[in-house]
């Protein structure tokens, strides 16, 4: 890889030990993929929370921050384990508070913007079309490539942080235009998409992700006015069962005004995969892992709920009350919670027994202590949350629509399809 004289100095440690570490990571990483050079990045997002970092990961971050190392690119952070404003009433164990406190302090020292959110692009971290970025969170990384048209590979936290510190990233993969062409056509024309809710798009994503794997698909016959929540539902689930870094949605993705452009002008058509209603039905059965009907917790927010989703839930819960043996959480960001308060939604939801929890997501962090608090069966409207809560934390999960989950919270038992 060609380095500029300044980059060579950075690698030699002339700008401090933290910069040397960052450059070590970037050069080794770039070399794996035969990158020719390092190019500037404009936006970084990092993901790891305590269940992934473990104590040693926190030590590593603290070592990195020694000597005043700081990010030089705007960098935001994914959700954490608990809402610090409700820590006592939610009985968060002290050992977890101590860990999250250390992560908070070290990220602040590094200059990371403490969003604790996975909808960071709804709150300030918005790249432009064509920007080179490093987003270490598989769902939002695919969203950036496919909806915004910014360019990010499937980078991990160490690479993304190194890019934030050095301001550059190896040029390979999806940073290069020639690697952003589709190599598989996915036809969804056989499905009656007008009748599909966001949950159906998630089931569709689950089914197709397995078949697409790490290829770069182009979807045809999607309605061009598809609502953003449905697009998110599809993309965030595709990356659970698949490993693609980008998806072309004809009429939606900026680089896919039509099929020919997505494939690259004049190219031979790749194979076509046709999605069927049976695939979607089958996915419902696979996503849910529940056996018991009794619901301990209804949990929304993977990715974190937008204000529009909270409005929908609030309307469904108006004047109702959740079952005495069931808990109901809405996971979101601190600023969406602030909006909820300002708009009176928090009052409606609190009266119904629903808790709005900020700084966490429904897939991972909270399950560490929820399990210890006796939560065993959960209802979710996110296939992504179902997958991670079951596979990483052993939760029994039921997956369905927002409405089915709300009804389940009221009756205390699963009201959706099995």
């Amino acid at each position, binding site marked *: 890889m060609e380095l500029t004289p300044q980059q060579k100095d950075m690698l030699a440690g002339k700008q401090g030990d933290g910069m040397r570490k960052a450059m070590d990571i970037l050069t*080794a990483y770039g070399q*794996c993929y035969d990158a020719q050079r390092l190019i500037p990045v404009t936006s970084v997002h990092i993901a790891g929370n305590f269940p992934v970092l*473990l104590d040693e*990961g926190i*030590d*590593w971050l603290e070592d990195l921050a020694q000597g005043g190392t700081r990010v030089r690119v705007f960098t935001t952070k994914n959700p954490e384990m608990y809402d610090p404003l409700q820590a006592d009433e939610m009985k968060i164990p002290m050992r977890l508070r101590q860990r999250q406190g250390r992560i908070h302090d070290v990220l602040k020292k590094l200059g990371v913007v403490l969003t604790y959110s996975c909808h960071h692009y709804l709150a300030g971290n918005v790249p432009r079309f064509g920007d080179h970025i490093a987003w270490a969170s598989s769902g939002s990384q695919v969203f950036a490539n496919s909806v915004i048209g910014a360019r990010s590979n499937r980078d991990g936290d*160490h690479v993304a942080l190194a890019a934030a510190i050095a301001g550059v990233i190896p040029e390979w993969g999806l940073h290069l235009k020639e690697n952003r062409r589709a190599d598989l056509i996915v036809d969804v024309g056989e499905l009656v998409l007008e009748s599909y809710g966001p949950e159906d798009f998630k089931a569709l994503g689950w089914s197709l992700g397995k078949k697409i794997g790490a290829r770069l698909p182009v979807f045809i016959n999607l309605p061009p006015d598809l609502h953003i929540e449905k697009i998110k539902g599809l993309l965030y689930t595709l990356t659970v069962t698949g490993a693609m870094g980008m998806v072309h949605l004809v009429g939606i993705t900026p680089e896919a005004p039509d099929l020919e452009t997505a494939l690259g002008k004049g190219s031979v058509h790749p194979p076509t995969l046709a999605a069927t209603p049976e695939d979607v039905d089958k996915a419902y059965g696979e996503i849910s892992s529940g056996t018991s009907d009794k619901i301990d917790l209804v949990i929304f927010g993977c990715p974190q709920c937008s204000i529009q989703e909270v409005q929908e839930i609030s309307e469904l819960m108006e004047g109702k009350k959740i079952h005495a043996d069931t808990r109901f959480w809405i996971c979101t960001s601190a600023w969406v919670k602030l909006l909820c308060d300002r708009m009176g939604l928090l009052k409606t939801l609190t009266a119904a027994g629903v808790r709005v929890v900020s700084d966490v997501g429904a897939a991972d962090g909270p399950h560490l202590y929820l399990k210890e608090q006796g939560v065993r069966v959960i209802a979710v409207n996110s296939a992504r949350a179902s997958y991670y809560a079951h596979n990483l934390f052993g939760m029994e999960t039921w997956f369905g629509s927002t409405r089915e989950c709300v009804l389940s919270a009221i009756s205390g038992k699963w009201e959706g399809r099995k």
Partner: protein
Amino acid sequence: MIRLKARPVTRGLAEGEALVSRMAISFTGGMDPESGIIREPGHDLFGQSVAGKILVFPTGKGSTTGSWQYYAAFKRGFAPKGIINEKAEGVVAVSAIITETPMVHGLEKNPFDYIETGDFVRIDADKGFVEIIKI
């Protein structure tokens, strides 16, 4: 003794007993950071520990959070001494960099034709070669 040229991913020297897998490895979920034991069902190293070995495998796979899990395993003394890959992949390369584990890839010959579990293997990631001594 056989010597094969290799492309360095990191620097340094490592030697020890080879543990060879023909399958890609994921450090998140696939390896227990508390023991270095491969725990992915159906993996050809299932139940075996990578701790202290010269780990030979085709490439990495899975979650990009793998480098955190590898780092924790390293700090607890359960990481391999050195890594030989057919083709290096980002998660494994970053894991090796942050733990200063000698790692090479792209050997001049197919490593699976030359290295078997139990062989004594030396990695020189500074000069770019691997030596194999059959015991």
